[in-house]
């Protein structure tokens, strides 16, 4: 009897020891793993995605907002009827059945099937109540004005980690400001998936992206796009640009370039269209550059507007002959007439009066050879040749805008000094950054430097008015308005020589001259109807200017 009792006691002792060992194993050795598993079972981490900042035009109307879309995913282990799911999703999402089937041939627990699905399609799929099909919230960019200012705005794509990232233009430049910071909620949930209110709840609020308010006026942008598109068709050009700036602030009122792309479907377009040519491509400015060399010479006191300049015939420099564009020579002419006739010979003679070092100093002071500092991601600047690589002929050709490469933005940036009493302003697209807490960061206009005296700006303005009134454009300018401007026709350098048939025609100017409201540059690439700026770019400029006078309420001065 006692023996049996002892045996049972030993057995109980062994069981007790076994339980102790198991408890030790669970409570001590596996503690961390099991605690984590328990935490995972009852806790849920819900991400709160930050909403990307919006972009507004100067009048507060939206240019880029966010659209709620959905992602659709599959959980292969939970699929009840695989064939039915494949067929239904293929039909409703427009994805080939083979694509979905191929995706399902993996051991993954979670498979994304479609992104950026609109509300309507998502509802259709949801009503099918397919087991193993899940939905997640997503957000995509929506462009109410369609492709307006596409190259200025840029687009949002995915980076290598699969996160949204802004590329090019404003989206690229202000990506950090626009993207915000995601938040999360960590809460305990009951078996039905509902939150337990009495349990701990940790919330990290999402910080939405900052909104951008631009200088860009969408009416001016619309007008510029309309006339540029028509101009490209009418003159058979390969493309073109229009840049309109407020000379007093450096604010970009409009920036158009064609061909362009649709930022909502950027993947369907050639990659070379993504970059904004106004800030990333270079061209030789041709005669539009003459106003800058002229202002330098006047500011240095080398000439006056009525100084007599020799234009009696071609000029020989370093074995090269420089002619006038139409082979006509007017003998002794004033500096004002040099611009009226757009005389290359006259400009070479003016450059001779201005020593070479001074010319280079002014070229740098006008901002050439360095980025303008505009808030667009892809801005580049063609380098200026090193000082020891400038030969006599280079100074001569630079005086009439050949042999020097600039971006369209650098060109309008430099000319705006004439409209702004000699002050060079830093160009800016964004006027204000609105923070989610309601405060605003204003971006104040920034004066880069005073390039020349204010009185020189007045003299140059009158000379440019004369160039419009007495030059090739006199018959097409809007009557009653005083517009300062200059045409430009630059040959395109190809493989070390200039192609006489291919030109970039341009017109730069500002109005009204008494109190300039805008400075505008129009460029056309390889127009086929006529190579001349006066017959292609200038009409586009005046058409836009005519509408701007009406829109901005600018009265004729005579």
């Amino acid at each position, binding site marked *: 009897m006692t023996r049996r009792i002892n045996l049972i006691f030993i057995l109980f002792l062994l069981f007790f020891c076994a339980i102790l060992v198991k408890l030790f194993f669970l409570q001590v050795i596996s503690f961390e793993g099991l605690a984590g598993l328990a935490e995972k079972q009852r806790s849920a981490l819900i991400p709160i995605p930050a909403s990307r900042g919006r972009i507004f035009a100067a009048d507060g109307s939206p240019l880029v907002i966010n659209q709620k879309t959905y992602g659709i995913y599959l959980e292969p282990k939970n699929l009840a009827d695989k064939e039915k799911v494949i067929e239904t999703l293929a039909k409703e999402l427009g994805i080939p059945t083979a694509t979905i089937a191929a995706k399902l041939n993996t051991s993954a627990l979670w498979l994304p099937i479609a992104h950026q699905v609109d*509300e309507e399609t998502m509802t259709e799929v949801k009503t099918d109540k397919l087991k193993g099909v899940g939905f997640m919230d997503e957000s995509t960019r929506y462009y109410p004005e369609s492709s307006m200012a596409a190259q200025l705005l840029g687009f949002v794509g995915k980076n290598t980690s699969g996160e949204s990232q802004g590329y090019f233009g404003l989206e690229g430049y202000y990506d950090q400001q626009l993207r915000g910071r995601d938040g999360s909620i960590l809460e305990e949930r009951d078996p039905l998936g509902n939150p337990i209110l009495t349990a701990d709840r940790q919330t990290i609020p999402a910080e939405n992206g900052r909104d951008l308010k631009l200088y860009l006026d969408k009416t001016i942008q619309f007008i510029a796009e309309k006339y540029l598109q028509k101009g490209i068709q009418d003159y058979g050009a390969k493309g073109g640009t229009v840049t309109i700036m407020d000379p007093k602030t450096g604010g970009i009122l409009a920036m158009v370039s064609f061909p362009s792309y649709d930022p909502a479907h950027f993947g369907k377009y050639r990659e070379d269209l993504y970059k904004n040519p106004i800030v990333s491509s270079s061209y030789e400015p041709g005669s539009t550059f003459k106003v800058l060399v002229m202002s330098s010479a006047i500011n240095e006191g080398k000439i006056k507007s009525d100084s007599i300049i020799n234009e009696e015939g071609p000029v020989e420099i370093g074995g090269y002959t420089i002619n006038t564009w139409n082979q006509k020579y007017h003998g002794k002419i004033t500096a004002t007439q040099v611009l009226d006739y757009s005389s290359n010979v006259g400009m070479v003679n003016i450059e001779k009066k201005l020593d070479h070092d001074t010319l280079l100093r002014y070229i740098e002071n006008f901002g050439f050879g360095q980025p303008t500092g505009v808030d667009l991601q892809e801005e580049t600047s063609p380098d200026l040749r090193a000082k020891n690589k400038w030969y006599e002929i280079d100074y001569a050709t630079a005086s009439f805008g050949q042999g020097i490469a600039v971006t369209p933005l650098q060109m309008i940036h430099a000319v705006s000094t004439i409209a702004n009493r000699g002050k060079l302003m830093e160009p800016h697209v964004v006027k204000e950054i609105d923070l989610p807490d309601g405060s605003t960061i204003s971006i104040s206009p920034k004066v880069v430097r005073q390039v020349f005296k204010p009185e020189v700006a007045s003299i140059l303005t009158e000379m440019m008015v004369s160039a419009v009134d007495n030059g090739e454009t006199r018959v097409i300018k809007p009557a009653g308005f005083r517009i300062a401007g200059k045409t430009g026709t630059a040959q395109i350098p190809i493989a070390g020589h200039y192609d006489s048939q291919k030109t970039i025609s341009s017109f730069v100017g500002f109005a009204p001259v008494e109190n300039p409201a805008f400075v505008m540059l129009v460029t056309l690439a390889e127009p086929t109807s006529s190579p001349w700026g006066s017959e292609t770019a200038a009409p586009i400029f005046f058409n836009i200017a005519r509408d701007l006078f009406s829109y901005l309420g600018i009265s004729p001065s005579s």
Partner: protein
Amino acid sequence: MESKKLTLNYLLLIFIAVAVVVQVFILNKHSTMGDQLSLINQKINGAETDNNYMSQKIASLSAMTVIADEAKQYGLTTPSSVLSLAGSLPLAANLRL
């Protein structure tokens, strides 16, 4: 004096018991109200989606191309000549009275 102290102790015990019951009741009730919070969150999401959709619709309808097309349909055209109402100063303004 002793019996008064005893009564106070009983009352205190009853109060603690009632408080515990109330706490258990409230915690229990709150613990099962998570579905209502989920419902409220769903409603907030729905309202946000509607709001988003509406602002998208308004933005689309006020787009320049839409306005330009509408204007064309109503027969509005670009003025061929600019008429300025803000020209020279009226005569009375120059009298310097």
